[in-house]
């Protein structure tokens, strides 16, 4: 009895301590949310502040975005299209490659796997200048395709899918072959559905990477109407700009789709990471 109440004491102490850590983590987001209802004059004078005049809070910043900022919505659309393309294409191709590296014995299999790991080590930033030149000479600069292309076969995802596919039951493959299924049928109809949790985990990570991608789109996108959200928002962050009203409400709206994606897939997320077994 006595020891149980002592255990409860520790439990509450730890919980309160952790609540404090969570508050620190969430504070910037909460600050952003509250500040998005503040008049821009206050924002510019104080930044995000403890001293908030509650009577001054209003929806003007959002009203402005919904009525006037047509540019903002074209950035939004671009980001949605690019992230959607990235998720679909990268899950399709990366799962195919990872699966093949895990289940088939073939010449060069180890070489390919080493190459995947090698690419993980090469920072993209080092390849970006020649790659940018390549896009220029292929005349695809300023298109969605140019943004998505480098993300299609994501080495992280290939590595992750391989780890996951190593655990798939191989007996199913043999059973399907006896039933007359082709190798492609086995992958698309049997194995891919079994990889569900890992696909969900990667959908979140790839979606996140694409939605928040900055440097590469900054290079290959040129016209304002093609900008993605991070670039568009960054252009509002100029030293002379006083666009904090659009910026802050626009930022809140930016986080929404990614939170929806996260809520939608989150119960698979940790499960997917666990069963994938990230073995360093």
């Amino acid at each position: 009895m006595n020891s149980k109440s002592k255990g409860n004491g520790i439990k509450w102490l730890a919980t309160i301590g952790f609540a404090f850590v969570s508050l620190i983590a969430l504070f910037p987001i909460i600050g952003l949310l509250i500040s998005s209802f503040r008049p821009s004059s206050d924002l510019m004078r104080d930044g995000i502040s403890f001293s908030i005049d509650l009577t001054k809070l209003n929806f003007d910043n959002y009203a402005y975005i919904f009525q006037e900022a047509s540019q903002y919505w074209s950035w939004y659309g671009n980001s949605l299209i690019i992230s959607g393309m990235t998720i679909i294409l990268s899950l399709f191709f990366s799962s195919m490659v990872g699966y093949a590296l895990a289940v088939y014995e073939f010449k060069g299999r180890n070489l390919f796997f080493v190459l995947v790991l090698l690419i993980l080590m090469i920072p993209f930033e080092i390849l970006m200048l020649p790659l940018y030149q390549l896009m220029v000479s292929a005349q695809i600069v300023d298109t969605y395709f140019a943004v998505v292309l480098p993300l299609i076969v994501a080495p992280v995802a290939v590595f992750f899918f391989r780890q996951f596919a190593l655990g798939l039951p191989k007996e199913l493959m043999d059973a399907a072959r006896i039933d007359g299924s082709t190798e492609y049928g086995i992958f698309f109809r049997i194995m891919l559905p079994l990889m569900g949790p890992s696909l969900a985990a990667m959908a979140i990570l790839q979606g996140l990477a694409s939605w928040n991608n900055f440097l590469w789109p900054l290079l290959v996108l040129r016209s304002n109407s093609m900008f993605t959200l991070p670039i568009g928002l960054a252009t509002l962050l100029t030293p002379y700009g006083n666009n904090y009203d659009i910026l802050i409400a626009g930022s809140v709206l930016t986080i929404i789709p990614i939170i929806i994606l996260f809520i939608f897939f989150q119960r698979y997320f940790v499960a997917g990471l666990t069963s994938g077994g990230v073995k360093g």
Partner: protein
Amino acid sequence: MSSNLSESKVSTDLNKKPFKEPNKFFKFLNSKKVVPYIFVFPFIISFLILTLYPAVRGIIMSFQSILPGQVQFIGLDNYSRVANANFFKALSNTSIYVLLTVLILTIVPMLLAILLDSKYLKFKTFFRASLFIPALTSTIVGGMIFRLMFSETDSSVANQIVSLLGADSVDWRYQAWSAMFLMVILGSWRWIGVNLLYFLAQLQSIPAELYEAADIDGASGFQKMRFITIPHLKPIIIFVSTITIINGFRMFEESFVFWETSSPGNIGLTVVGYIYQQGIGQNDMGFGSAIGVVLMLIIFVISIIYLILTGTFKRGDE
């Protein structure tokens, strides 16, 4: 691929070796020798075009002077220019950033994950989600929030806290120490939740029997952590810290969002920022490429030394 799918009904079992083959070409495409290569084909293409080509091209460019319409080889001139004060400033900024973030982003998420995995905590799902949510924001959005929180005015959150502690308001974006602080805290804030998930995933794979056996032997909580938890976390500690080192050397956005490409006295200049500034801003792609090659060598050397020191190569793969 979809046409292959529809044909799957016609194909016959390979092991039975039928006398009549319905379609030789398709049978070839479906043979176990060819199939893996078709699956890996996208990777081969993307490796050749998106990695090998730009890597080789980048190395060639680093020996060239590249002006519109005239490209010429200039030997090691670009490399001799790399050794300048701005580059060393960028390199020292980046190195300090790497050191600080590796410490913070390995130790803090590990301790939080151990606590989250323990029986001493309520509301675990909420805590896990709240720490992960910062990762959902982009560096640009996060950076803008931090600019507003750490604005120079006396009334900003950061300066209000500072004044509570009895100090004067800080010009956060214009001093060397606080500039580094801003970049580190923004990067750490966004990444702690992600690394926390990696640690959690690994913690949940530790067999419960080990702890039960330790309990029977009368081990203390500290001993269980020292002899069971930490050793089992070692692979993930290596994974997380290696990724953090590599990402740290690639850091660009945390600096860009605070100062764009020019910070006072280069207090926020990073190596990748320098590549961007020279290669794109000044249109000096040869010089930019040379900086890139130097950065790549630095990352390779440090990663390999780190992986050897931590004994990763000794274990052998799989």
